[in-house]
């Protein structure tokens, strides 16, 4: 069994901090302090779904599951949240609906991956395809709108808090809190330590009397709830719409954050902010005056590529840390 037990995130942390600082400083010099703060907050907004999904995936991978279905879970949850909110007229019920959908889909994945000993990548791809089909289908059935549905009124959008004239979502604080909580759980609680054991060596864990399947299932469902929260945030709070193309690969950006963060929740959070900032930058640059001539010629598409290219660039320049265990993504069979 190769790999390091403890993460040593010194170099990565420095690099991410520098990258964020450079982007924000450059923007600050280019456009002034007001826009600088605006960009900073846009980055926070864009960070939330990536970080929630990524931290959930950290739990999954610590337990030994490799769930690439989080993209689909986010998409289904974003739709489920809007549907529940429209039915009940309350954003809180909507949020709960999103969490429930996330938990159910993750439970399905966990059953296939643990008790069924299935191929996790194929199952994840299946969940993504299923999500795309179900959301597009039910958007049409529920509201007769092909492709997307705008929230019908502002009552069911998650209320924002206002700090010095900037409206900020309180989900940002929730995301930060959850990251800290997961970090604490993984390092300091019995559940977290057992989970890490199940991911590191399921055989020994099983022999010492711990139910690996149940542990992995619980972790996967919690991960699904977090991804569902990210999806519900996107539809009910940030963008205020449900669409079959809502997530746009954010689940996979979250996976890249997990790879880069080496299963450390705090470092994953930092990577999540960097990629969130870059995707916000892509949208923000489109409104910059000097970009106007390019915009006329379809330049917006070039800016939209920014976060994805950044993920590829970061993964190319800094090798993904060795996975903690070769067991991740491998089905465990008892006996």
């Amino acid at each position, binding site marked *: 069994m190769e790999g390091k037990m403890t993460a040593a995130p010194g170099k990565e942390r420095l690099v991410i901090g520098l990258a964020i600082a450079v982007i924000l400083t450059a923007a600050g010099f280019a456009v002034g302090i007001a826009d600088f703060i605006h960009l900073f907050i846009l980055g926070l907004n864009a960070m939330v779904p990536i970080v929630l999904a990524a931290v959930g995936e950290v739990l999954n991978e610590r337990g030994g599951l*490799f769930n*690439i279905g989080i993209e689909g879970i986010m998409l289904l949850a974003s739709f489920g949240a809007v549907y529940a909110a429209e039915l009940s007229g309350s954003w809180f019920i909507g949020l709960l609906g999103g969490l429930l959908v996330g938990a159910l889909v993750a439970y*399905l994945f966990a059953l*296939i991956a643990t008790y*069924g*000993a*299935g*191929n*996790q*990548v*194929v*199952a*994840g*791809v*299946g*969940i*993504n*395809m*299923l*999500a*795309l*089909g*179900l959301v*597009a*289908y*039910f958007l*049409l*059935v529920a509201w007769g709108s092909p492709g997307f549905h705008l929230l019908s009124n502002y009552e069911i959008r998650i209320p924002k808090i206002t700090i010095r004239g900037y409206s900020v979502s309180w989900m940002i604080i929730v995301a930060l809190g959850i990251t800290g909580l997961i970090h604490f759980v993984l390092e300091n609680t019995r559940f977290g330590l057992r989970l890490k054991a199940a991911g590191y060596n399921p055989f020994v864990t099983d022999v010492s009397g711990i139910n690996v399947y149940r542990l992995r299932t619980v972790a996967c469902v919690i991960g699904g709830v977090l991804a569902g929260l990210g999806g519900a945030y996107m539809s009910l709070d940030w963008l205020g719409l449900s669409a*079959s193309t809502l997530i*746009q*690969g954010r689940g*996979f*950006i979250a*996976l*890249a954050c997990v*790879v880069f963060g080496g299963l450390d929740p705090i470092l994953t959070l930092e990577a999540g902010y960097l990629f969130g900032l870059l995707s916000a930058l892509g949208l923000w640059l489109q409104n910059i005056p000097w970009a106007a001539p390019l915009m006329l*010629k*379809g*330049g917006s*598409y*070039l800016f*939209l*590529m920014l976060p*994805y*290219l950044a*993920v*590829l660039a970061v*993964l*190319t320049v800094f*090798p*993904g840390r*060795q*996975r903690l265990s070769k067991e991740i993504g491998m*089905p465990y069979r008892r006996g």
Partner: protein
Amino acid sequence: MNLRYFWQTLKIAEGPVFAILIGLIAGMVVLGASGYNPLYIFRGLEYSFFTKHGIISALAMATPLMLTAITWAVGIRAGVFNVGAEGTLMIGAVMAIAAGTLIKLPIVLHHLVVMAFAMGAGVLWTIPVAYLKIKRNVHEVVSTIMLNWVANFLVSFLVVWPLRDPAWPMRSLKILPTARFQPLVAGSNLTLVFFLSLVFALVSYVLLWHTKIGQHIRATGFNPDTARNCGINVSRATVFAFGIGGAAAGLAGYALTAGLPPLWSISEKLGTLVNYGFNGICVAAIGVNHPLGIIFAAIFFGGILSSRSYMQMFLGVAPEITDVVAGVIVLILALPELSKMFGHWRRGKVTV
């Protein structure tokens, strides 16, 4: 080729057929839950398999599916999960448009040049994936999905600006008549490219099962450590698997531009290109990741896709119901209990 071997070969189909049944049942449940007649799904399939229009349309749909399925299947045989067909297909399509409109050549030569451009672009597009996988230990699913989105936006940009058709906004230029394929049956979009993709499937079968590099690819997928100890260059086999997959997806992009009458072009929203890559995964899973199985699976799945327009127009059902069916089929086929049924056959084949 005795009778028992034939019977065993037939048995492989058990798993996929079971998965297809479950998928169709799931589709019926979704239809029923949303207030439609669940049997509409069979009305759609009846159209695609028992009417002339339907069969032709199914074969046309099967053309790119066969190729994107081979992308996934070759990856699986080498032990990698290449979900990059979606983006590679788009790059192949846009390169076909570029070569088909900007280069002027006589008729057969032009076809070949455009095809070479599309396939070459597909191969080149997989280089970063192989590099990240081998040198940087990055999971190929992450890098291919990132490249899919890059390809999506890059191709949209190319369609909107450099390759824009001045006469038809939001669409690219049409491929010149010297590089087009005409429909085999008037009014359909079935062209000779169908046979091209059949040939590609057969070639990839020969490549995987009857050449040295194919043997290395399959050995790598079977057990990379053993393969390495046997002196096989595992990295080289992986690069080849990605490359063959890229060529297949690039050819699929070619099929969806040069072989797509009457458009011979792509739109800004890439409506004629999306989802073939992911549906290809389903096709490959149904065809047990074997090029010969994929040919049949692609024609079947082409039938499912061609029933979309029928169900939408005549029954008022949202066409995305077929994506639900495909997703459930893939989920069922991810379970190994079913693959055990055809495990015998595969083991018999792998130990050459």
